[in-house]
Every structure is written in structure tokens, then in C-alpha cells.
């Protein structure tokens, strides 16, 4: 910083960026704490904060059911794809073999599929497997979304682990299976946690598949439930409830992201740029 003027401008910019990034979520929290007619007064701080919206929201069985559905589907998706991806990302990161580049490119391009391109085929398949309107069906199609991404990010992390350990393990007569289990698994724990978190967020936020492959409200995930929250008429949306639901769905993610900032940033950028 050369002089005072530049410093002031710089911090003004920083303040504007922080305000721009944080304000909408702050506003959602403020709105969710208002009720009745105060909902329709624009006040930066709620004068009589009340938890009524939250209490009403959680007294609805369907919302709790949606939360449970989201946790189950996202959790299952993450566990399944982590197990499958850990094996293959080890191969892709640590072994040289013919066709590796082709497989890598295929996995990367699958992760870039527009979801809509598989929508009708997936619908047909899910109906055929009798999984329509079920949590198992959602988990099934979320694998399409999450697995390629998981393999890619995990591979990036595994590749960065030092080679010496592996060489020592080979000298000790360690076969590939034992190596994965005894050498890489313990080392990759932070990477697995980060990748799992990113995968969880992806599954938790998914909307198109959840909207298309569920029918009844007891099978909905939270994004669909929030999109469909409606009041007595089209013009009378229950904004207090919608914002309370939004905060409930988002707050855990925001906290997790803030706690694991560093890892998430490295996971995201290695997934997209470094290849």
C-alpha cells in the first residue's frame, strides 16, 4: 500500500465484497426470525426476533421427512462413491498402465455431462428397475453425478502423496492390496474427508433428479421440498417458512465450509484445474 488513499479504496472494495457475499444469507436469517406483519417491514435487524417460523416448520412432518431423506440419500451416495472411488483413484494415481489416459478423460467427461442428457434414459432405467419414487432410486442416479467427481478429486490428492513411502512398502514385499489398505488409507484420511464433504454438498444440493424421480412428498429431498413450499394461494407464499427452511438446510453447510476452508479450496481447485 503506497499511501493512505489507496488503503482506504482497498478496504472499501474489501467491505463491498464481504457485504455482497454475506448479506443475502444474513437477510434470510433475519427474515426467518420475523413473523406476522413484521415480515413485510424492511428492517435490517429484527425488532422482535421469534423462532415461530422454525417451530411451525418442524411441526410439519413432511419437512422433517425431507430432511431425513436428504441425509439418507446424500450419506449413502457419499459412502458408496467413496468406497468405489478409493480403489480406482489409487490405480489412476499410482499405477502406470495402458489406457489410463483414456479412462481419465472418460471419467472427466462423464463428470461434465449435462444432467439433462441422461434424464430420460435414467427415467426409463429407474422405472425398469422399479426404483421410481424411492430413496434407493435417487441414490442410484446420484452415483452418476457424484462418482466421477469423487474419483477425480481423490486421485488428485493421492497423486500428491510422496513416492518414497510406496517404494519402501514395495521393498518390504507389500502387495498392491496391502499397500492400499496399510499405506494409503491412513495417509489419505484427510483427503477422503474433504472429498466426502464436497460429494455430500453436491448430493445435498441436487435438484433436477430429485424433482423428476420422486412423486410423493414423503420421498422428497429438502431442495425439492423448499421449492414446493407454498401457502394457501399462489400469491401468498409463506416467506417466513421458506426462509427458515433455507437457513436450516444451509447453516450446516456454511459452518462445515468455514471450518474446512483450506481443504475445500484445495480440493475444488485441484479437481478443476490441475487435472
Amino acid at each position, binding site marked *: *500500500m503506497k499511501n493512505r488513499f489507496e488503503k482506504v479504496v482497498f478496504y472499501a472494495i474489501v467491505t463491498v465484497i464481504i457485504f455482497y457475499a454475506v448479506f443475502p444469507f444474513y437477510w434470510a436469517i433475519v427474515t426467518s426470525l420475523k413473523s406476522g406483519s413484521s415480515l413485510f417491514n424492511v428492517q435490517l435487524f429484527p425488532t422482535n426476533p421469534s423462532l415461530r417460523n422454525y417451530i411451525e416448520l418442524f411441526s410439519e412432518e413432511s419437512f422433517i421427512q425431507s430432511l431425513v431423506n436428504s441425509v439418507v440419500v446424500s450419506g449413502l451416495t457419499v459412502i458408496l462413491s467413496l468406497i468405489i472411488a478409493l480403489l480406482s483413484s489409487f490405480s489412476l494415481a499410482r*499405477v502406470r498402465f495402458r489406457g489410463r489416459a483414456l479412462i481419465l478423460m472418460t471419467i472427466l467427461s462423464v463428470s461434465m455431462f449435462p444432467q439433462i442428457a441422461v*434424464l430420460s434414459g435414467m427415467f*426409463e432405467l429407474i422405472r425398469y428397475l422399479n426404483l421410481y419414487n424411492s430413496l434407493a432410486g435417487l441414490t442410484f442416479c446420484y*452415483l452418476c453425478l457424484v462418482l466421477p467427481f469423487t474419483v477425480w478429486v481423490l486421485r488428485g490428492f493421492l497423486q500428491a502423496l510422496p513416492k518414497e513411502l510406496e517404494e519402501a512398502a514395495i521393498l518390504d514385499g507389500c502387495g498392491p492390496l496391502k499397500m492400499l489398505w496399510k499405506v494409503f488409507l491412513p495417509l489419505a484420511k484427510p483427503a477422503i474427508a474433504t472429498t466426502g464433504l464436497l460429494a455430500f454438498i453436491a448430493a445435498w444440493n441436487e435438484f433436477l433428479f430429485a424433482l423428476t424421480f420422486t412423486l410423493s412428498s414423503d420421498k422428497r429431498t429438502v431442495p425439492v421440498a*423448499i*421449492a414446493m413450499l407454498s401457502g394457501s394461494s399462489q400469491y401468498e407464499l409463506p*416467506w417466513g417458512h421458506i426462509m427458515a427452511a433455507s437457513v436450516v438446510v444451509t447453516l450446516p453447510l456454511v459452518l462445515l*465450509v468455514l471450518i474446512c476452508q483450506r481443504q475445500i479450496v484445495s480440493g*475444488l481447485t485441484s479437481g478443476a484445474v490441475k487435472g
Partner: protein
Amino acid sequence: MQATESTPLLAIPEPGLMKRFWNFLLYSRVLWAWVFLAPTLIALLVVAGRPLFGTFWLSFTDASLLALDEAQFVGFSNYTTVLSDPDWWTAVWNTVVFSVVSVGLETLFGLGIALVLNSTFPGRGLLRAAVLIPWAVPTVVSAKMWTWMFNDIYGVVNHILVLLGVLEQPVAWLANPSTTMAALIFVDVWKTTPFMALLILAGLQMVPKDVYEAAKLDCDSRLKTFFSITLPLIKPTISIAVIFRSLDALRIFDLVYVMAGTTKGTATMSVYARQRLMEFQEFGSGSAASVLIFLIIGFFTVGYLWLIRPSQRES
């Protein structure tokens, strides 16, 4: 072999066939690489390959939502239906406008935020944390949050703009297509600029420090340093980030669907395709539209893969 004959004491007995086979099974890295890969490949074939093939197949049939099994092959007629539908071209246009404007703005803002984050100053951690919040908010939630903020009567956006004197009276942002499109772009920029900033920041941090030292010695102004040194060096990162984000923007569905529904004025390609599939229940033409989207985005994907190829080679 000859060497071992002259020194019989050190002779190592040839391992038996079974033993060698066993060793191969246990220690061949390539074999195990394929064994480890198998679950992923099979899973991808089932959850991605099969549905994609299904969409391609359905796009050549007259399938409808209620009669998926009685589909008859009809050749390219679904494609002619979609391509001669003015609504499809409106959707293509909407998607292009949305993608070009929002990715353009995101790149600009992302670059700015990345440059700020790349300098050291007190409060940098706070800024980085703040910037991550929009990324963590689910798209459906951000769509709802902003719909509320853009509300014509009770919305905080109008309130602030009127208070600042920018607007004389509140605007019904989500009531007509052009302001709705502007609002959609605004929300997308809000939500995805952090990602862009983080990608560009990663590129900035790879620029070696001594490059700047040299520039300082040459007494270049900071603006000149940026345009003649920093920008060329991070150009590859920026182009990768732009393509990556374009892929995302071209397939946008949730934001548009939640904020604006299937209104013609703002419907994007994905919204159009899903409307044909699920609302009109025309699986044939809906699948054809999906295949067209796939081809358009596939074109960009190839470009992306081609761009990151050099980094593949070094690894």
C-alpha cells in the same frame, strides 16, 4: 542360468509354476490396477453409459411418458420437430445470453476478488471465508432467497435502491422477461463468482514471486505489470476456468426453474427439454432436445479437455 551352474551353492531353485502364478496375482500392479478400476467402470457403465444410451435411443422413437415400452423407431423426426420449434430457439438464445453475460461478469469479478485475495493484508482470512458462503448455499435456496429479496413490494433490493435514489419507485423485477433474465444472471454471478475467484487465485499463486521483483526493478507501474506480466501468465488458468464455468452455465436448470418456472421468456435449454419430457410427456422430442444439449456441451467439453491436456502429460 550359466552363472548359477558354475556356482551351484548359490543356485536358487526355479519357483514352481503355481508359485509364480501366485506371485503374479499378488504383486502385479497392472493386474491390480484393473481389478481396482473394475467397480468404477462397471458403475459408470450402469449409471451413466446406460442412461445416456437410453436418451439417444429414445430420441429416435415416438415414446411418451405413459407408453415408454411401446416406443416405435421414427428416425430423425423428433429432431426436425425440435429444430423447427421457435420455442427451442428462444431457449437456445436465452441460454446463450445467460451464459455469456454471467460467465463474463464472473470472470471479471472473480479476477478482481482473486487479486485482492492474493495480496496480504489484515482481514484476508475473513474475506476468504465470506466469499465461500455463496458457494455453500444450495442453488434452490439461493433462488428462493433472491426471489424474496427481489419481491416488488416487500423486497429489500427495491427498498435499498429507492433509499439510495437509484430508483424512483419499486420495480417488479420478476414480472417481465428482460428484468427476470437480469435477476437470474445477477443471482448466478453472486453464487458462482467465488468458485471463479478461487480457481484464478490458484493460478495467481503459481506465478513465481521473482517475476514481480524483476518488474519492480524495471520500474513498471503496477497497472502495466498486471497487463504485461500477470495477465499473460494466468491466461491459461482463466481460459480453463471460463470453459469450466461455461459448461455449468449452458446446462443451468435449477436456478431458472425455481425463480422463473418454465416461462418462455427465460426458459433455458435444460428447462425446455425437461418441460417436453415431463410436462408434455413427449419422451421422443424431449430426448432429442437433450441429445442436442449434450452435443453442444460436448463440443465445449472437448475444448476443455484439450486445454488441460499439457498438464496431463507431465503427471
